[in-house]
């Protein structure tokens, strides 16, 4: 009973047709852009949240590399680095899937490049790093589930799956390890 997974879900962030038909005269001649729908707003919010999560993990990864591992160069530091790298890869996969569902009119997409979000500073100590990441993951998971009502079925399924993945991250971050 899954919604057709193959059906292409296209969310145009603005009146794509209007922009395309306007040709090469540029965005200024078109007047104000129509307000995006609730589904587009929700998807954009999910993308921004995922971008922030990727940025967070990247800054943690940089900090761990700089310090030779949060737990030192030994086994504990090594397993934390593996965990962070694996979870970062999953967030990058989430981001890719979310972005693939947002279809911006080309001119609009290039007109306002989104600044990448700035992650909060990385705390000192492996335990605090893992705890803060777990808190952020749990909050992100809850936020996704709270927004399911505003999106089409296929996007709801993707968001629910990402919310589940983030909750799994919480388990692994609290345990501070990953099976290999």
């Amino acid at each position, binding site marked *: *009973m899954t919604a057709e997974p193959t059906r292409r879900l296209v969310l145009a962030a603005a009146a794509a047709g209007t922009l395309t038909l306007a040709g090469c005269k540029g965005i200024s001649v078109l007047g104000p852009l129509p307000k995006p729908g609730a589904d587009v707003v929700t998807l954009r919010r999910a993308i921004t949240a995922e971008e922030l999560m990727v940025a967070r993990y990247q800054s943690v990864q940089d900090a761990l590399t700089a310090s030779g591992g949060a737990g030192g160069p030994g086994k504990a530091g090594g397993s934390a680095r593996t965990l962070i790298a694996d979870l970062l890869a999953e967030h990058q996969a989430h981001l890719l899937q979310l972005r693939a569902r947002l279809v911006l009119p080309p001119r609009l997409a290039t007109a306002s490049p989104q600044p990448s979000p700035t992650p909060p500073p990385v705390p000192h100590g492996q335990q605090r790093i893992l705890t803060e990441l777990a808190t952020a993951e749990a909050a992100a998971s809850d936020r996704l*589930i709270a927004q399911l009502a505003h999106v089409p079925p296929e996007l709801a399924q*993707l968001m629910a799956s990402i919310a589940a993945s983030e909750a799994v991250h919480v388990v692994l971050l609290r345990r501070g390890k990953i099976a290999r």
Partner: protein
Amino acid sequence: MTGSAAGGGRLAANSAQARQDIAALQAALAAEQAASYGYGVVGSHLTGAKFTAATAEYVAHERARDTLTAMIAARGGRPRPAAAAYQLPITVTTNKQAVALAIMLERQVAAAYLGLVAASDPALRTFAAQNMRDAAVREARWSDLPQAFPGLPASSLRPARRG
């Protein structure tokens, strides 16, 4: 789209959606029933903390099963009864196999809630997403492994775009 014809159309659409919602609830119920049965087998091959964990998960699946049964009945559906026995995906004779079975059961449950996440009723969506998340979390407690897209078939993921 005004007038009684549209109203009738909306009614028909509503009842079609209600039927879809019940079918999705039935699919989740079947998975929870299978998981309840399966965890009985899982628990019988585990001891200590793992046995305790399996017992807790068994209770969680039974609760979800009862909730789904009530939800189906409240929507005018007839909850499908559990089978007397289920064909398990693997033979379990060791504790390692018991853990492997628990992981498989949770995967099946997570996937079974996916249809319900697409339901028209927002409350059903939230309920389904929370249960899907619980299943993924239980799976991770057994496996210690991350999962990028719990419950989603690979076919619903987009290939990476270049550029």
